[in-house]
């Protein structure tokens, strides 16, 4: 998994670079939007207010030396609204109130005729909007000033509703973009995550596949990285192959001189006229040559086990293979006074893999059991009733639980066995061969509480 946390996140970066300017834009948009809303609401409400004002001023007339005014219900009715704004009015002449609410301040300055003026004011502490008009009435030489006012509840509410809608819209936009960024990053990274799946799948294969990653999957931006990775893969493959070939070649080359030494030492051992010192020395050389030979053979085995090839596929009879391998170790076990026995829950048991590999695994386990087991002890090779499970069990000193991982490492040997002959490669070979056949190997303590039980679980053969 990709580590989230202190690692730089593409999404984070993208969001940061995208959302900060976006917020600024939205803020500016909001500010101008609010201004516009205010203007629109004011203009619309003022138009109604002016309509109401004109309806009142139309009725001004002089009748018998008196200024008369009719208040048509429609004039004030058009100002009625859901928020029940209060409506006030007054009429003044030359700065003196003639009729209406005295709390509406009277305009005493000169006003242009036939033009409606608007202003904000307060009426008993409540904000109001006032429309005023100066109108000439026949028989009067100064204009009469009519004012109509309404409280601003309705227009404020309207403006608030519109501002809320604007704010909601902007928020929605912000969230949508954030979600889109996340999805776009995921979508954009999809080819890379496909590549990751491919790389991960390879690391679980018994033989690492060093073939270059397919570039067809790779987005253009990641191409240089993947190309570099591919060339690294190539280098690693060459290095691994060189190492394998070296191990194998070197071991093969060592065999020839070793054969010469061994053959001559065996001939020397036959000479009866040698002194006791000479015999001792020859015997020591012989032992050393034998352990060197064992080591070389194990090295070749390991190199072969780790070399990729297709022969790990197929199927074979585990019972037959195990019995045949165990049979070849019977006389060695007997020579060490050990009791080797074979138990099987099946007559035949087809499993997946290669019988030569499996035989070599069992041979290495038996070699270990005889080499490191208890003289006079028991070795049991068992095909368990569970499908495809093979067990090799001894009652020797066993492997301490803390070392059960490490014994699979090359050349690792338990301290208790340092003075015994052995290469330290047996279990590495078993593991490498097991991996090739996808068999699982587990070290356990036998039911008796003493010794070592190696459990190999083979895959069932394909029907």
């Amino acid at each position: 998994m990709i580590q989230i946390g202190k690692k730089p996140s593409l999404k984070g970066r993208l969001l940061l670079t995208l959302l900060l300017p976006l917020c600024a834009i939205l803020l500016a948009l909001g500010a101008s939007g609010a201004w516009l809303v205010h203007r629109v609401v004011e203009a619309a409400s003022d138009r109604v207010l002016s309509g109401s004002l004109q309806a009142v001023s139309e009725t001004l007339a002089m009748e018998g030396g008196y200024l008369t005014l009719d208040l048509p219900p429609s004039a004030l009715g058009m100002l009625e609204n859901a928020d029940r704004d209060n409506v006030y009015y007054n009429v003044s002449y030359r700065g003196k109130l003639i009729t209406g609410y005295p709390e509406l301040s009277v305009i005493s300055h000169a006003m242009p005729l036939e033009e409606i003026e608007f202003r904000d004011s307060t009426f008993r502490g409540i904000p109001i909007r006032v429309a005023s008009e100066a109108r000439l009435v026949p028989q009067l030489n100064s204009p009469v000033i009519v004012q109509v006012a309404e409280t601003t509840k309705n227009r404020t509410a309207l403006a608030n509703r519109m501002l809320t809608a604007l704010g909601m819209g902007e928020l929605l936009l912000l969230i949508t973009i954030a979600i889109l960024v996340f999805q776009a990053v995921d979508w954009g990274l999809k080819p890379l995550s496909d590549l990751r799946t491919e790389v991960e799948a390879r690391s679980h294969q018994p033989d690492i596949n060093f073939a270059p990653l397919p570039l067809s999957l790779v987005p253009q931006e990641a191409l240089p990285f993947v190309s570099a990775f591919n060339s690294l893969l190539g280098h690693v493959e060459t290095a691994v192959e060189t190492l394998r070939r070296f191990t194998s070649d070197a071991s093969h080359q060592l065999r020839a001189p070793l054969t010469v030494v061994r053959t001559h030492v065996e001939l020397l051992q036959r000479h009866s006229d040698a002194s006791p010192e000479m015999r001792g020395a020859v015997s020591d050389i012989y032992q050393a040559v034998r352990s060197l030979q064992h080591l070389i053979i194990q090295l070749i085995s390991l190199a072969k086990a780790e070399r990729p090839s297709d022969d790990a596929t197929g199927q074979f009879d585990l019972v037959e293979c195990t019995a045949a391998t165990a049979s070849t170790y019977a006389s060695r076990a007997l020579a060490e006074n050990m009791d080797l026995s074979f138990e099987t829950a099946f007559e035949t048991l087809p499993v997946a893999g290669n019988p030569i590999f499996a035989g070599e695994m069992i041979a290495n386990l038996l070699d270990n059991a005889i080499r490191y087991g208890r003289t006079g002890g028991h070795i049991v090779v068992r095909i368990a009733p569970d499908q495809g499970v093979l067990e090799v069990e001894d009652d020797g000193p066993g492997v301490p639980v803390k070392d059960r991982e490490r014994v699979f490492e090359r050349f690792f040997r338990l301290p208790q066995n340092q003075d015994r002959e052995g290469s330290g490669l047996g279990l590495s070979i078993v593991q490498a061969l097991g991996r090739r056949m996808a068999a699982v190997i587990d070290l356990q303590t036998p039911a008796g509480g003493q010794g070592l039980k190696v459990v190999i679980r083979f895959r069932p053969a394909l029907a």
Partner: protein
Amino acid sequence: MRLLIVEDDAALSRAIIKVFRSQGLAVDHVSSGRDALEIVKMEPYSAMILDLGLPDMDGLQVLKTIRQAHFNIPILILTARDATTDRVVGLDQGADDYLSKPFEVAELEARVRALIRRGQGNPEPTLHLGNLKLDRASGAAYVCDQLLELTKRERAVLETLAVRVGNVVSKARLNAEVFSYDDQVAPNALEVYIARLRRKLEKSDIEIVTVRGLGYLLRVAK
């Protein structure tokens, strides 16, 4: 009897020559494939030890050429390669036996001896195991030169185990060797014969060991 050794490693050749000369064999040695093909026509060799890694040609090619010329000389292949495929190819192309380096001298001696005998059409007429002597022609068995009284089936069991001394012989294999198809065989018949044989071999240093689950193994007790 004459033995031909084809081996390019001089030091190893000297050792092998010494081994077989000490046994009274006439030994010739060449170190190239071409020389081997020349000399094999000239002398009636009883057997040939052939190294696969020769300087001038592949040992398998030498083997093929000899077999194509219809020489029936028994050939043992000696090689530092041990891949199973090499072994199969070698035996397919007419080798009689195969030994990979490094080998045990005693093993090489035994295999060459067997090859020579087989070439003479006389495979191991008498088996000597400790103080047991088994005459395969007559079927008679002796312990310390005293004839053992054995039934036909006991003799069959003993012989089957003796020719594979030191190796486990499975019960199925023994049953197949000892009983014919129409024999009415009790399930424990084999165990009975083994038990009787063990009693009769008490005075010998031969031991028949039961390897549980696998079969029986005959060995010379130390």
